[in-house]
């Protein structure tokens, strides 16, 4: 019995194996809707305003951004559900606008949420239906469905109606459906939203295991720690544009350094702020106001600057405490999004 079978496949059937998993060039996407009743007015919303992106094969890439930034729109464009208004999108070397049918068997999409499943039938029946839709051979269906149910931890609930499932269980079933046909590229749109901490941790473990098996993953998330923990690289999408893309480390450097100092107090004046900005190693000073109270956040490039030096500059304010911590992805994200907004 042969353990391995070597097969030849026409390149035109499958698409090239080299090159990036995703290549997006100047993609724009505009939605049109109508306002009014008798005299309707066309309203145009630009969800994507010239996005450029490349994701390598085998990479776990994070897409971050506030609500309405265009993350889901971009995922839908990449997964052939939406056509771009302009620009080019290649997924696994195939133009998604010209040839979506060739892309679809090779990608998985997990949009998540309460909807998107047939609630009146069981989890197993849902998976059986979608395995037919995605071309899983009948001889392999039973085994494959059992496998994915076990992978997401739904074996016990496999024959229960989906309407009895909790939000977390539905989320797991969405993921099971997404990986049912063993896609090379998986799109995960906020996969841990609504999950309890334990389930979210299991989900992240599962995502890591998929990447370890060679699956390319593009993940959107609101949770910065999740992206920081999981992703090789991240991009920040704001108002339909990618405002930064790099490793988490690279993004920290981009916004001004690995170190962050914070100080809270009242009545910091412009002269003090200017003096803080002028300190050697300070790349950025962000001021936030909470009623009369202010918080100053300093991004620091240099390792030489101490909290004492900062406190010294603000000695006019009594009892101030300058705290130091590592710059998180959340800091980076907020800086970038605020910068874009301003």
């Amino acid at each position, binding site marked *: *019995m*042969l*353990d*391995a*079978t*070597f*097969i*030849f*496949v*026409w*390149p035109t*059937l*499958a*698409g*090239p*194996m*080299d090159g990036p998993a995703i290549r997006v060039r100047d993609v724009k*996407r505009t*939605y*049109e809707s109508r306002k009014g009743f008798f005299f309707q007015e066309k309203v145009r919303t630009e969800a994507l305003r010239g996005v450029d992106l490349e994701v390598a094969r085998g990479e776990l890439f994070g897409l971050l951004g506030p609500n309405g930034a265009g993350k889901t*729109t971009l995922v*839908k464009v990449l*997964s*052939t*559900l*939406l*056509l771009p208004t302009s620009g080019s999108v290649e997924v*696994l070397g195939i133009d998604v606008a010209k040839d*979506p*049918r060739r892309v*679809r*068997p*090779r990608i998985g*999409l997990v*949009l998540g*949420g309460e*909807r*998107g*499943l*047939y*609630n*009146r*039938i069981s989890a197993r*029946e849902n998976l*059986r*239906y*979608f395995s*037919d*839709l*995605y*071309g*899983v*051979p*009948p001889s392999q269906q039973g085994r494959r469905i059992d496998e994915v149910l076990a992978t997401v931890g739904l074996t016990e609930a496999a024959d229960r*109606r989906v309407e009895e499932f909790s939000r977390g269980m539905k989320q797991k079933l969405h993921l099971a*459906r997404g990986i049912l*046909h063993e896609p*090379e590229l998986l799109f995960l749109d906020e996969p841990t939203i609504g999950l309890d901490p334990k389930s979210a941790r299991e989900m992240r473990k599962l995502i890591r295991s998929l990447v370890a098996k060679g699956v390319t993953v593009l993940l959107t998330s609101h949770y910065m720690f999740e992206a920081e923990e999981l992703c090789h690289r991240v991009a920040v999408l704001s108002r339909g544009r990618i405002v930064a893309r790099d490793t988490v480390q690279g993004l920290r450097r981009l916004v001004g350094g690995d170190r962050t100092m914070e100080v809270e107090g009242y009545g910091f004046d412009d002269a003090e702020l200017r003096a803080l900005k002028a300190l050697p190693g300070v790349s950025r000073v962000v001021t936030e106001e909470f009623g009369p109270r202010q918080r100053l956040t300093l991004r620091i490039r240099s390792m030489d600057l101490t909290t004492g030096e900062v406190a010294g500059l603000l000695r006019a304010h009594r009892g101030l405490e300058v705290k130091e911590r590592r710059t998180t992805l959340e800091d980076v994200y907020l800086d970038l999004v605020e910068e874009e907004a301003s």
Partner: protein
Amino acid sequence: MSAPTTTVLPGLIAPARPRASGPRVLAASFRLTVLMFSADPQWIISSLMAPVVFALAAFEMYRFSSPVLVLFSILGAGMMSMWAQTLYGSGWATGQDREFGTLEPTLGAPVSYVWVVGGRVVWNTISGLIGGAVVLAVVGGAYGAPLPIRDPLTFVALFLLVMAALSTVGLLFSAVFVYSRYAGFVQNIGEFAFYVVTGCMFPVALLPGWTLPVSLAFPPTWALDALRSATFPGYGGLPWGLTGDLLGTVGLSVLYLAVSVGLFRYVTRHLAEKGAAEEW
């Protein structure tokens, strides 16, 4: 014995993937529709109870008229319900896909949505046939209404043809449901006009002359005329006779199928342009 594994020669190409086959998706969609219907017993009202109620009401109204008129009214009432089931059911399932949020993952599958709708149409047709059989059994058998059908076998064969012709209309209408979430409103209004112009309740010959071209645009008009010509004693029907009716039914049904396939391709593309698959 270890399971064989498939390894691709290292190089430029990805492994070939099994492709979803249309007929298999049709069967899967049929199965899903049966499961969904059995999970929601409301369908029994529309497919089994309503036809019997309509037919009994029609029988009571015409029981003292000629037997052919009684037959007309009973079958007309039964068919009206069956048509509702077939026409409405197929589109309604697409509307449900919108509501459940399953339209997007279904459209994102590597197979044409027309196969998914096809499976639903098959179930709805069968469900309509079951309804028809129940009407005949209850009204003709248990209630004792006269059913002077000339040739029962021909009747059954042509009845199946009527349902097949109707399915093609159901398929075409379903594309409209994919196109817009408002299709249900249009269909609710159009349903009754459809009953009239296709001669469901009474022969199209009784309608004003100007409506005939509209009637003839629908395959069930031809199929129903064939059914009545061949099995109803004393039925006049359309001037071209049974053969003309059969050719018209088959030709128009094939045309409807072809247009449906093209229309589905167009509406799914349009949906990807508009981005409205999750609206409901």
